[in-house]
């Protein structure tokens, strides 16, 4: 494999890791607050459809982004009502919302555009287009680093850079602010938080809301940046891969970034079986490459790659003692 192919792979990795990363960070907030969310997939899907539809109707990618966040927040609110207010089963609620999103997105897209459940192809300002970072053109001729900067780092949409900036921001919020401390506490020991006079319900709703925002960005990225419009089931299990990355990263933001980059790299590899074959000298079946993130997650869960210990109060509804 030559340097140009490697750069191409890394460039694809970055683009494919972005929705994973956003969804993974989304899950991080929710699960750190003690609310399991296997509905990341559905929220992304709902956001992708809304973003694709609104961007097509208004011609503005930013309006699409807002619509995506709105749709995702609506699903997050439903999850919050089921899981926090009515203390329902969080896993079942997530499964239900995934199905709901899967069906509703096609129904609404079909009703709006009559294009077989897709939204019309987007172009120009209706999409988030690539940005050339300052100095990329000038540095292009510098050996090794120049092409790396020009091909891999530069030339992505604004949402990609936003996603990677949210990583340190999340770290700072979780580990350096009062809100973050309380958020983590409510995921470990909600009774203690309650005793301190802080609202468990309020904190958990805040966390679920942040999850909604981030999934919204992830979905909007899918429909208005990675691709040019919404297509049915376009998230294709990314919500679950993000969940896998979250466990792989043991619920830590920076590790989550590395996990998502790794899983994004696998996805990039699955698109280039020829490159894989050239490197390992054996024909690797594409399905095996597709399954790698899942296999890796099972290995992590099995405790072979370090033990993943979830937040202690995760999945349990909080009942105030009477």
């Amino acid at each position, binding site marked *: 494999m030559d340097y140009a192919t490697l750069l191409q792979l890394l460039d694809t990795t970055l683009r494919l890791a972005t929705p994973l990363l956003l969804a993974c960070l989304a899950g991080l907030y929710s699960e750190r607050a003690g609310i399991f969310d296997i509905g990341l997939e559905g929220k992304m899907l709902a956001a992708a459809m809304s973003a694709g539809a609104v961007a097509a109707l208004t011609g503005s990618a930013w309006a699409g982004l807002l619509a995506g966040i709105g749709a995702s927040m609506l699903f997050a609110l439903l999850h919050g009502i089921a899981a926090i207010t009515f203390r*329902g089963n969080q896993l079942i*609620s997530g499964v*239900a919302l995934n*199905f709901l*999103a*899967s*069906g509703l997105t096609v129904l609404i897209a079909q009703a709006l555009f009559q294009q077989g459940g897709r939204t019309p192809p987007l172009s120009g300002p209706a999409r988030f287009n690539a940005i050339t970072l300052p100095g990329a053109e000038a540095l292009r001729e510098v050996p090794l680093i120049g092409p790396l900067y020009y091909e891999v780092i530069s030339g992505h949409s604004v949402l990609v850079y936003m996603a990677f900036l949210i990583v340190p921001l999340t770290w700072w919020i979780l580990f350096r602010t009062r809100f973050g401390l309380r958020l983590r506490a409510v995921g470990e020991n909600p009774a203690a938080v309650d005793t301190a006079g802080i609202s468990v319900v309020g904190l958990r709703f805040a966390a679920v809301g942040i999850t909604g925002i981030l999934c919204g960005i992830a979905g909007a990225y899918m429909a208005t940046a990675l691709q040019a419009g919404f297509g049915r089931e376009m998230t294709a*299990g990314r919500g679950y891969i993000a969940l896998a990355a979250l466990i792989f990263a043991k619920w830590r933001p920076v590790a989550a970034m590395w996990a998502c980059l790794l899983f994004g790299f696998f996805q990039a590899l699955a698109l280039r079986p020829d490159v894989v074959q050239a490197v390992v000298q054996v024909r690797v079946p594409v*399905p095996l490459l597709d*399954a790698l993130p899942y296999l890796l997650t099972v290995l992590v869960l099995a405790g072979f790659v370090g033990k993943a210990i979830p937040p202690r109060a995760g999945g349990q509804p909080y009942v105030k003692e009477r």
Partner: protein
Amino acid sequence: MDRLPRWADITLVPLVSLLFAAAISALVLLVIGQSPVEAFKVMVDGALGSPYGWGYTLYYATSFIFTGLAVTVAFHAGLFNIGGEGQAQLGGLGVALVCLSLPWPHWTVALIAATAGAALFGAAWAAVPAYLQAKRGSHIVITTIMFNYIAAALLVYVLVDVLRPTGQMDPASARFPVGAQLPALNDIPGFNLIFQRPVPANVTLLIALAMAVVVWALLWRTRLGYQIRAFGKSEAAAKYAGINPVRITIIAMLISGGLAGMMSINNVMGEAERLLQNSSEGAGFIGIAVALMGRNHPFGVVLAALLFGFLYQGGAELGLWTNIPIEMRIVVQGLVILFTGALDVMVRMILERLFRLFRSTKAMRAA
């Protein structure tokens, strides 16, 4: 707070949940500019209006009984098996390997062997998540989801690179030999008086009903069933009573995976007569809705499976005859899971309030 009477808890809670799901589905149809009344008419007509429609409704219901029972058994052990889809697909692989391995002399022999193969492959696919949950404490929900994806990838590989006959383009196995083809309901004496045209519902329906009885007997009439339910109610109490948690977790998941795998004799052996990609078509997931709707009782599961059979056949008819996309049935499925599984506390609260109101007016009248 007053408790609901038992009869209300068993019948009213699922019915009211269903009403909520139906009301919101109707609302969704109105929003996308369709008539809910018309849609319902098309569904009833297409799924229940003719023996032909019933043939499809019962065909879907057969698959859903298996996957619903699978989720039920795991639920009773306190385990949420979302892996029914993957287990069913592996079950399909088991069926295909059995059916293609020998020139079967008669379908009865082939059926017994294929059922064993389906159950074995489904159970094996559930065994790893079960072991990881029991021994290493990894969450079964996540591992079974991962195993669904791994199963899908595995089947793509097997169908493209291993089982596909040379010269065939589509990723599928060869057609099963004649001796391994199951009689449909229209081939069975007695049933053929009702079903005069070929229908996909086949003899597997009877096996599904028998399995419902077997699961009921297992859960409520055997020592193992008692242990499973005790473990599901309270792990600590079960341990104290000498029940081995590792053993129960693994056995319950093996039974669950086996049941999910067995659905493949319906669709792979009974209908397609060869193994296709994504053969289970989401039936593994519908098992979750069916188990929740059926209140985790085999009798309820059979009723709920019929309801979802109606929904699936009716939904297909909607896709054919109206402008409503076939995805409408996924919306209804999601709503049913939401109301019966996650918002059940809300439904109960509403009913409890109604009952209290009813009781207080009765008390006032008596006074």
